């Protein structure tokens, strides 16, 4: 464990994957997202994001239930039903207008609520930063998603396209911020890792007050 609470026993492999991911971003994702952003109006980008998020709600429902969070399960169910119908197949987030905003989860979080530790840091090809726990969660989510069981292969192709478009849209939306991490920071691997772990722990509510940096921790003499 380092000072920042990072456990990274597979660093050499992770760094190789990171180089691949950055290369992929530079060659494909980044230019495609710029084109997408230039061609697709903001309103449509939001619809694509909404529709893609809506297809994630059944999975949220399952995970919230497994986490014993029945209120959260209710939120996912309500959002899926309302947005799929009134929200025209999920392209409008009507539920949010009614005050029921998205609260995404995944099987990685379920493992966390069951007491599963974070494990080691891993950077996955294409998918990006993760941990052994969260990578396991991704696999389980793919299997567990109720939509995967009810959808036939004709319906799965548009779903995959939607997910890809959403990913491209996210790359466009956070373009400058991601550029600054991937291309402007000195060690983009370490910076990606640190940002991911801090944000993930925050999402899971792990961040505790003991980890806050004290204003008297460092001698500031001369600075």
């Amino acid at each position, binding site marked *: 464990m380092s000072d*920042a609470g990072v456990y990274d026993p597979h660093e050499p492999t992770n760094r190789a994957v990171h180089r691949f991911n950055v290369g992929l971003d530079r060659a494909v994702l980044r230019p495609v997202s710029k084109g997408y952003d230039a061609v697709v109006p903001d309103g449509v980008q939001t619809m694509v994001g909404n529709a893609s998020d809506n297809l994630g709600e059944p999975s949220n429902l399952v995970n919230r239930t497994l986490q014993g969070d029945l209120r959260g399960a209710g939120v996912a169910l309500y959002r899926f039903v309302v947005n799929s119908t009134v929200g025209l197949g999920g392209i409008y987030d009507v539920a949010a207008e009614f005050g029921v905003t998205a609260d995404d989860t995944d099987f990685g979080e379920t493992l966390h609520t069951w007491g599963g530790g974070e494990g080691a840091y891993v950077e996955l090809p294409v998918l990006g930063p993760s941990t052994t726990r969260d990578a396991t969660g991704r696999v389980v989510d793919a299997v567990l998603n109720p939509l995967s069981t009810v959808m036939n292969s004709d319906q799965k192709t548009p779903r995959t396209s939607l997910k890809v478009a959403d990913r491209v849209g996210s790359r466009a939306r956070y373009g400058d911020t991601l550029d*600054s991490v991937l291309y402007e920071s000195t060690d983009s691997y370490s910076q990606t890792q*640190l940002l991911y772990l*801090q944000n993930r722990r925050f999402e899971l509510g792990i961040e505790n*007050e003991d980890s806050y*940096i004290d204003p008297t921790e460092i001698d500031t003499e001369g*600075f």
Partner: protein
Amino acid sequence: MAPLFSRRSFIATASATALMPALPTAAFALNEATAKGLVEKLVQEINKVIASGKSETAMIGDFERIFKRYSDTSYIAAYAMGVDGRRASGAQKKAFSTAFTAYVARKYGKRFREFIGGRLEVQSVKKVKSFYQVRTIAYLKGESPFEVDFHVSDRTGKDLFFNLYIEGINMLLTEREEIGAMLDRRKGNIDQMITDLKKAG
């Protein structure tokens, strides 16, 4: 509510005020109200810059001015340098502080520029250890609202923020990693790192 000053703190405050007449934000004692007040003023200034529609360079200049006035720049710089600060000379520390402050203003100023059309709102304040955590919510166009926390301390005798958390990502830790990586890449050469820092962000 407790009286604003006890007699003892009044005397201390009076002499401190006499000694530092030019302080822009003459803070008496840090409490929930003053910590929140500081962040409210800070947020007002940031929102004003965001709404001004100025050029990026002009906005970054404004952010640097705001950052110098409202944050504990010496603590933030010292923390970012970490243990390497122990082998730095006085001149290096000073040069680093100056370069680092401008770098932070550029880097975070660019991010705040993305807030155009959005705003920050102060929510609540809480005492944590020896400091106060002031929670704000950022409302950005087309995004779910997210938390931005300011950690405020009166370590220097003034109320200043010394750390910033954006959705759990804390500035001190993130910048210490970045400065550490810069030093590693330059084989620990502090002067070289400072020169490069002037171009970074």
